[in-house]
């Protein structure tokens, strides 16, 4: 009788202890949910992060909330330890990849706004792996400027910290010095613009550029010399068209290429027929390396700031 009483009491005590432990575990999980949701909401709806380090801090806050909520939830579930470890590995790997991706997207948008440098006769945009030749007898303005902004709070007086969705930036402008300057005649120029862009594939990209071409046709006295087409120069897929504004004999060759999450637009403008050949040489000089990623192997990028 005594034995049977002991046997029945022990499991009750254990169950109660487990219940209390389970209760506090559930409370901790709820706190993890609150943390994760609050941090995510702040990340998405809060004011834009002003620096790469601030952005990383926010991501870490989201990650900690996620780790607390998901980690405790799995640890408290009724699964075998091996199953728990598998789930933890999968869910933390996904979170890590997503976090790195968010960080990369933010940081690459900052790095594209870093001023280009001239190295060994080439203009180099290190942040996006782009370089091209600095043509002879030319001068360049390599300070990036945002020309079209949808951000109501953009401060035009300071160098923008990053290029955001919907904005367009001039990354560089190269002016060719004319051999025989004529008053009132514009020098030939090459302007490099960038904006966030994503296309499913080359066909979708070509279709989008056709819309740019159609817009140029609305300029008075303009005519298309070369319709939108795909070309491959120096191993890079380019999509381009060319138009002319007739009375001034102003030629503009518009060349587009995709670089990571951006679309780059090279505007090659001239009123000098002879300079059009120079543009061919210029385009052959473009080099585009894959944009370094946190996930690329074996090199990882150094943070910009």
């Amino acid at each position, binding site marked *: 009788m005594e034995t049977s009483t002991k046997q029945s009491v022990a499991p009750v005590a254990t169950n109660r202890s487990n219940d209390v432990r389970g*209760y506090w575990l559930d409370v901790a999980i*709820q706190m993890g*949910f609150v943390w994760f949701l609050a941090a995510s909401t702040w990340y998405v709806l809060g004011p834009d992060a002003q620096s790469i380090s601030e952005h990383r801090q926010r991501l870490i806050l989201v990650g900690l909330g996620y780790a607390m909520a998901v980690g405790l939830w799995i640890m408290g579930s009724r699964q075998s330890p091996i199953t728990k470890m598998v789930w933890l590995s999968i869910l933390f790997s996904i979170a890590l990849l997503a976090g790195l991706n968010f960080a990369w997207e933010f940081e690459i948008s900052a790095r594209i706004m870093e001023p280009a440098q001239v190295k060994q006769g080439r203009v180099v945009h290190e942040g996006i792996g782009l370089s091209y030749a600095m043509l002879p007898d030319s001068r360049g303005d390599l300070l990036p400027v945002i020309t079209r902004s949808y951000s109501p709070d953009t401060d035009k007086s300071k160098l923008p910290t990053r290029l955001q969705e919907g904005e367009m930036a001039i990354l560089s402008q190269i002016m060719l010095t004319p051999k025989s300057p004529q008053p009132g005649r514009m020098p030939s120029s090459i302007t490099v613009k960038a904006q966030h862009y994503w296309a*499913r594939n080359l066909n979708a990209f070509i279709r989008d550029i056709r819309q740019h071409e159609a817009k140029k046709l609305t300029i008075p006295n303009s005519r298309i010399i070369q319709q939108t087409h795909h070309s491959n120069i120096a191993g890079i897929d380019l999509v381009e068209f060319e138009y002319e504004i007739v009375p001034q004999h102003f030629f503009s060759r518009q060349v587009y290429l995709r670089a990571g999450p951006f679309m780059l637009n090279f505007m090659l403008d001239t009123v000098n027929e002879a300079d059009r050949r120079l543009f061919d040489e210029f385009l052959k000089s473009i080099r585009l390396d894959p944009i370094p990623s946190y996930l690329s192997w074996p090199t990882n990028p150094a943070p910009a700031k």
Partner: protein
Amino acid sequence: MSTTLDTAPPRTSPPPPSANSGYIIGPVADWVLIIGSPIVALLIACPLYILPETTFHVSIQSKTIDARQLLIVSFINAHLFLVYFRSHANQNIFRLYPLRFLAVPLCTFLLGWASPAALGIMGLVAVWWDVYHSSLQTFGFGRIYDSKKKNDAALGRSLDYWMNLLVYLGPVLAGAHFVDHLDQGTRRLGFLSKEESPWNDLFVQQTPDFLKTHQFYLAAAVLAVGVPFVLYYLYAYYRMSQQGYQVSWQKVWLLIITSVVSIYCWGFRSFFDAFWVMNFFHALQYFAIVAFAEQKNLKQVFRVDQFSMGGVLAVIWVVSFCMLYGFWSSTFASQNWSSSLVVTTSLMHFWYDGFIWSVKKKQV
């Protein structure tokens, strides 16, 4: 806290509404969240569209976004994601179709991620399946209301099926915004270059153009079929009621309200108004039924079944997490993998809803 544990009253599931009442959740909840939800959506949407557009411009991640658009797209995606709480988190349902719940979404996701063409086709399918699926949701509610009146699950099933298709598809096909729907579909096929193949041209250009130019005949056909069908529908139910069928007034009002709002929105409001209202009430109904039917399960999933306000907390969590997904998918999901994830979730929602709420199998 241990006191709470010791003295907590034994937990019981909320008493179901009286079987004779004919309601699913209860009179107030049914009228606000299910039967009258189209009117609720209309009442919310109207003020939104009276005020100037700039009132709703908000800056998120330094992008200026129309808050109305953001809200509805997030809410739509949130309700699409909600299906997983029924299909995957409810073990009784999950065990029935493990292959459909694991292998199919995984393969669909990988296919969409790997192939832009497949992703485009999946997106196109999702646009039109969405319309079909929405009509079937109202159909499903109607069948549940019928079963609450102890009517035979098969009685009038085909009639209701066609009636609900007519209520949804009719105004879309005959309405002023059919062209917008077509354009939405054509944009999904943007990856096809029509110069490359006659098939691409057929999909991207010829078929939409043909339908656009012949919409008058389409509208006439909808009316020619629709009006006699509605008369026949009423007559058939009148005959059935004389043979013992118990009329569910909840179903009758659900159909009347849904039809009137659908015709009003697609026929007389802008495309965006109609899109907003129809999708809002559809998602609201879905949240209501999942929160009710899965109450016990949600409490377990979110580990709140020990708390006195566990039911409320579970609803808060499920809405919050679904809205978080909805917000992410409508704002950030622009890459191949994320687009594929969003489209896969849409397709799985439309598909799963066809077999995880079976009235015949008494799953509801």
